[in-house]
């Protein structure tokens, strides 16, 4: 393993988090969530450390990290906007919100070059009676119009 500064930091964080969850059964997911909460993503350098901590192969850990949509391999933008595209929101024009974001130059799953915004799709936020729903940095918004999404993307709606 290399010994650059960032590796030491990642390893330190991962080992500390793993220690915190040591007594739990099947703790890999809680640990991955905690690592992502601290570092903003699950960096590649974390994989061998996790493998060591959990007595797994690197391939096993890689398999888990890449299976779940939530775990990021790269940091997200400062604001994460998730547009619900499940059927209930589709019935109220969720796809027009996606179209609006695209017209504004924001493609699903990508982060703007300045690192300001990441726009993603999500399937169901559980706000099916008040769609279309959009989540902004964990905060749920209901009945979102294209104008409302515009305000969110421009940062004029606080999250």
């Amino acid at each position, binding site marked *: 393993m290399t010994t650059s500064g960032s590796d030491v930091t990642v390893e330190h964080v991962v080992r500390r988090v793993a220690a915190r969850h040591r007594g*739990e*059964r*099947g*703790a*890999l*997911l*809680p640990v*991955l*969530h905690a690592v992502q909460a601290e570092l903003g993503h699950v960096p590649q350098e974390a994989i061998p450390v996790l493998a060591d901590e*959990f007595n797994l192969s690197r391939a096993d850990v890689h*398999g*888990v990290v890449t*299976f*779940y*949509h*939530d*775990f990021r391999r790269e940091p997200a933008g400062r604001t994460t906007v998730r547009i619900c595209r*499940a*059927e*209930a*929101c*589709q*019935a*109220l*024009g969720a796809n*027009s919100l996606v179209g609006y974001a695209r017209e504004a130059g924001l493609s699903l799953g990508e982060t703007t070059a300045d690192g300001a915004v990441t726009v993603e799709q*999500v*399937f*169901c*936020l*559980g*706000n*099916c*009676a*008040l*769609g*279309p*729903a959009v*989540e902004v940095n*964990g905060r*749920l*918004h*209901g*009945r*979102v*119009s*294209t*104008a*409302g999404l515009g305000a969110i993307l421009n940062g004029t709606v606080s999250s």
Partner: protein
Amino acid sequence: MNNTSQATAKVYVPRDSAARSVGADEVADALQLAAVGGDFDVEVVRNGSRGMLWLEPLVEVVTPQGRVGYGPVAPSDVEELLAAGMLDGADHPLRLGIVDELPWLARQNRVTFARIGVTDPLSTEDYVEHGGLAGLKAALARAPEDVVTEVTDSGLRGRGGAGFPAGIKWKTVLGCTDELKFVCCNADEGDSGTFADRMVMEGDPFMLIEGMTIAAHAVGASEGYLYIRSEYPDAVATMRAAIGIAREHGWLGKGILGSALDFDLHVRVGAGAYICGEETSMLESLEGKRGTVRAKPPIPAIEGLFGKPTVVNNVLTLATVPVVLADGAKAYQELGVERSRGTQVFQLGGNIAHGGIVETAFGVTLRELVEDYGGGTFSGRPVRTVQVGGPLGAYLPTSMFDLPMDYEAFAAAGAMVGHGGLVVFDDSVDMAAQARFAMEFCAEESCGKCTPCRVGSVRGVEVIDRIVAGEHRDENLALLEDLCDLMTDGSLCAMGGLTPMPVRSAITHFPDDFLGGRRTLEIQPVTATGTRTEGTA
């Protein structure tokens, strides 16, 4: 202005995330601010939601006549409402009347949802005062096998969608002799059009804890896991808080309520994988692995979490157990029709005027739900179809609206009640696009373990594209039919096995949409303040 309110006025503002998504926090803040300013003596209680979601934020004021509702209240309305005498239940254009008497609510038969929206979800006093713990006490006074018998006799079937009798599953776990057994609650409510599990966790978390504890006593389990999807951060926070409070009160931990039962409960958060709503995938995920489906047998009741006997039930199933024990199997069994006993919590969503929770006995028709309770579409256009039971459920045309909600009647009609979620679409919907989406969703969310689901769904998208483009339409329709057969028969779990249901129902009931070139109707724009309030019935 505030001449009659000498005593502190108690005002309820929901903390449910749907209510919060349309401004409930800001409304609560505005009310608190008025109290801090000393102008009004207000105590704000954050309750769950009554489930009349088009009225959210629904503010309720306690008056001698009952709780008077105002809604939907925008933060900017608060000042005017206070000035008009809201704290005394005074008249105002947003006044709805006594909430319990609103026809939409009064017509329902709320069993599982009886407390939700009424109480403060994290108040143990509220919980006990409104019947909480009665089921657990009744269960602890009886032998485990008697509790299992009670649940079996009630006719309670799994509310997660498959409808498997809960008591039979429990009996299998009880019959295992292992030292270590688990109770797992599947709270990975990923289906579009469903939000009842979320509302239970946010609105009445102790009920779920109580239900899981009863299950633990019934089967001899000592540990419980609650697997909540990461898309529900409010539910995660509320459940964690409730579990902490329950431990402090001796409702969890060692010697629960002075009995010999030891049981503790842990929250686990999913990581954005729809397939983890499937019970064996959820178990894999709980074990820290990729959420891939396990082949059955062995069933989880015999070899479940970490290879141990495990009860796996949905939130609504476990949340219904306390009332079954408190009121007895007979009372629950008397509700419903045929082999669909008790109540179902229907969730009205999508393009619907009055969306929300309708808990009523089985046997209610789709028409009653969509037209009477739902009030038609939100857009005001005609209803074209309703998808029942989630993304793997059938799209039904209005000609089938007299179908009663009953597991067997729906199965006979090529549909499923599933978890009781209804998603309404108006006439702007393109059913070929919806069928394509069903396949696309399966391709996106398949765990990848079995070929019919992993590859079949990708091929399904391609075939539908060719049909819509008019390429060898008849041959491709036959191919799609064949593919649907293969996915139904050859998939390991319901993800691939049921994806053909929305696809086939779209082709059967809306064949014209597959002829290509369906005019895409303009969807009525939804405005932020566009919630309709007229006619709460």
